[in-house]
């Protein structure tokens, strides 16, 4: 039996590869690192996910997409549960995901050491322009079009761009 479970667990992970973030559609939910666990027991699939930000409206859509994806591949009993701890961090984003973001025109998150500090009026991280690769950029706003992004502008090519902020 344990072999069967292993195979279906792997199948579920593979199926989840096809579920994307509705707001940043180049990223799969595995790229984002929000799937924390998958269990298959007696035909019931449990997928444990964690939100990127508390109020991220994409989470409900993502839960629905996971359910639809698994149902359409024959998994009839699907439980999706959310955990908050340990809190999601951009460290869990895959390298492939970061490359996809860059190609999409969004600067990928920096490594953790530059996470939001309490130092005021400081650009606390150097962010690379996804268009011309210059590091000579400036933050326009801490907050962007979605909870996970902030707004930057490149001082060299002058293009404004989104930065998937380190969190």
């Amino acid at each position, binding site marked *: 039996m344990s072999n069967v479970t292993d195979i279906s667990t792997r199948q579920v992970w593979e199926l989840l590869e096809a579920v994307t973030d509705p707001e940043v559609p180049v990223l799969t939910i595995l790229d984002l690192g929000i799937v924390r666990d998958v269990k298959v027991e007696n035909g019931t699939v449990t997928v444990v996910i964690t939100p990127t*930000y508390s109020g991220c409206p994409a989470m409900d859509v993502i839960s629905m997409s996971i359910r639809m994806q698994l149902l359409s591949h024959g998994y009839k009993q699907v439980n999706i549960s959310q955990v908050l701890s340990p809190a999601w961090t951009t460290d869990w984003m895959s390298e492939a995901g970061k490359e996809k973001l860059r190609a999409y025109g969004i600067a990928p998150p920096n490594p953790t050491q530059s996470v939001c*500090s309490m130092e005021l009026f400081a650009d606390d991280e150097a962010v690379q322009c996804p268009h011309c690769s210059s590091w000579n950029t400036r933050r326009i706003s801490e907050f962007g079009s979605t*909870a996970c992004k902030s707004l930057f502008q490149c001082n060299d090519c002058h293009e404004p761009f989104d930065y998937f902020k380190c969190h």
Partner: protein
Amino acid sequence: MQQTLINYSLYLADNSLILAQRNAEWCGHGPILEQDIALTNISLDLLGQARSFYQYAAQLINTDNPSATPASEDSLAYLRDVYNFRNCLITELPNGDWGQTILRQFFFSSWQFLLYQQMKLSSDQTLAAIAEKSLKEVTYHLRWSSEWVIRLGDGTEESHNKMTKALEELWSFTGEIFEPAPFEKAAVEAGFGIDPVSLKDAWMQKVTEILQEATLTVPAPRWMQTGGKEGKHSEHLGFVLAEMQFLQRAYPNATW
């Protein structure tokens, strides 16, 4: 114990929800687009935190009362009346001008930052997890609002005067946050709650530091407004709820 945990969770949820609702009124009205987006982002974070606390409260209520109509995050947000809300009065006050909204957010974020730092270590695992998650978001809120208080206080004569007026409007509503309600005392006694008195000095220190940098004067101690935690609200909350709850009241169980 269970009832204390329910009350405490609802208190935390109500504070976040009502301030989220107030901040959301700025959507489309912010002074510039980026800051309009910033404030609505903060609103969304607060709404998410409120949802987590309401979901937890609903789960506890339903375990206590399996035969009753099940409670949900929606029923707790949309179907309770003014006297059941426990939020501090400062969250329900009208927004005033941009400076007043910013100053309130700064007071509130300074408190939430200290609260969640403690609550992250709570003996109740769900409260601890919500705090751990929320603290990362509140760090952004606190930095953003601190910068704006300084920018406006130490800005032009007009912005300085407006901030002085905002301080005058809001100050007497800051004491309530640190005045423990019976359910907070019970929560501390039960081991999972945070004593608000223990946060007061650190809050005052932070506020003093930022106000000084903003060239604003920390107001002298004065009589403080209270009542929100016991459901005795200002006339403003009724109007907030009327707008927020209208759809569910008029069309029960309506969904998108």
